[in-house]
């Protein structure tokens, strides 16, 4: 109720606020565009700020992800509306720029900054966090380590290289992500289903596919080496804690990054400073 009362869309006084949510009996907030749908869209994730639904755009065949930022009852309504508008537009702008410049991100389909939603292309696939963990687990199960050390596994090296190249390409066009984790990177599903010859080939297929960057809610336009280095540092730390067994392999990401755009090596130098500061900070407590 309170969410509706603060919604940036003024409701006609004689209409019960419930009408806004008649598309679903679930308590999850939905933007009013869903009012006419017989069934609510599928909720994929519920973050602190945003809800992500899987739905369709224009035609039943065109899948899309809908990112909804409902109003926050605890924020002042005017401030809340302004903040929502800013976040929606800023994420959309960055996505459009990336896509135009050939960086692999979801396409922007539509948005409504007043209602707080953004519709983007549905990326068929899975986040890198899940894919990489699945691959590491399968490798461990067959004890592939006995044959070849992890750091020398070509499938892993190739995959991490593609991650580094994707990040470098984004930095190269003047965008920093602001929240690089292996949950904000996806692997686009490859359609060509091959019959894998053996377990190794089938396992390595897990890491195939285009690396797609997602979640530009905290992104900004910047070419500052410091900002770029912080992006890498955040990814490095996230990587180390989410995939501890592959922590050392992160060097492959950086190696590919270093070759991905002019000036990347200066960023790698800067990364050493950022790491140092991070270490000092954690020592101070």
């Amino acid at each position, binding site marked *: 109720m309170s969410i509706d009362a603060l919604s940036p869309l003024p409701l006609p006084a004689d209409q019960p606020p419930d009408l806004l949510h008649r598309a679903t009996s679930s308590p999850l907030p939905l933007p*009013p*565009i869903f009012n006419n749908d017989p069934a609510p869209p599928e909720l994929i994730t519920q973050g602190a700020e945003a809800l992500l639904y899987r739905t369709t755009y224009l*035609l039943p065949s065109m899948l899309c992800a809908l990112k909804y930022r409902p109003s926050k009852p605890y924020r002042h309504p005017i401030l809340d509306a302004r903040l929502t508008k800013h976040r929606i537009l800023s994420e959309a702008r960055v996505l*459009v720029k990336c*896509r135009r410049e050939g960086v*692999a991100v979801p396409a922007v389909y539509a948005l409504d*900054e*007043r209602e707080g939603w953004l519709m983007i292309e549905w990326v068929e696939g899975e986040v890198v966090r899940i894919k990489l963990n699945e691959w590491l687990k399968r490798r461990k199960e067959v004890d592939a380590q006995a044959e070849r050390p992890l750091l020398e596994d070509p499938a892993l090296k190739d995959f991490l290289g593609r991650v580094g190249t994707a990040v470098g390409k984004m930095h190269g066009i003047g965008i920093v992500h602001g929240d690089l984790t292996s949950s904000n990177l996806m692997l686009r599903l490859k359609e060509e289903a091959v019959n894998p010859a053996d377990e190794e080939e089938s396992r390595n297929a897990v890491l195939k596919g*285009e690396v797609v960057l997602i979640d530009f809610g905290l992104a900004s336009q910047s070419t500052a080496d410091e900002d770029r280095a912080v992006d890498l540092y955040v990814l490095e730390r996230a990587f180390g804690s989410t995939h501890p067994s592959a922590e050392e392999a992160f060097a492959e990401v950086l190696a590919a990054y270093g070759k991905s755009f002019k000036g990347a090596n200066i960023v790698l130098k800067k990364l050493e400073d950022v790491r140092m500061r991070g270490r000092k900070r954690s020592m101070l407590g």
Partner: protein
Amino acid sequence: MALLETIQLEHLPQCHKVHIALYRDVKNAAFLHDQLLAGNASFEYALIDASVIVSKIHALAAAYRAVNDMLSDRLRSRNVHSEIVFSLSPNNNIAESFRRFGITPSTTSLLLIKITTDPSLSASDIASHLTTSIEGEALPFTDESIENVTDLARVRKIYKLNAGGGAKGKGGKGGKGGVNNVTSRVDERKELEVAVLGAIALRGATN
């Protein structure tokens, strides 16, 4: 005969129908343009110069945006039909959007969109009005027909997508052997569509 297609767009109320017809070699664009200027009530259509449309989705995206804005009382122009034309625009200049995307006396390829909310006006009523009002060759509303009338250079200019851009080689793996021309042409078209969708979704809020 008009080849009118009726589409139910996702998330719009059941009673809201989008009717679309495409023509080439239109002979009476000046007359049609006059009907709009005169506000002739029997010509409540979005009359779009089809040469600046890149795909079905491009046209439908504008219709969706206009209906959505109508439903939330946010029309910026006269009615939902003029709003469809404005919804094709990458900026907030309404008059300019009519000049660029709307029918002009010299238009030869025409995309017509009609939004109905009242089932008493049927698709066949609309089709018969079109048959008597539009002198031109009806084409099916498909990506193939649209492709044949698109003026790519003009689209790139209007949406500020530098040549080869808007579809800058994906992945930059240039010259990868075996990529056949058909695939890359389809990809390029797709990327152009994506760039255009992004531009109209942002409409001026580019920086």
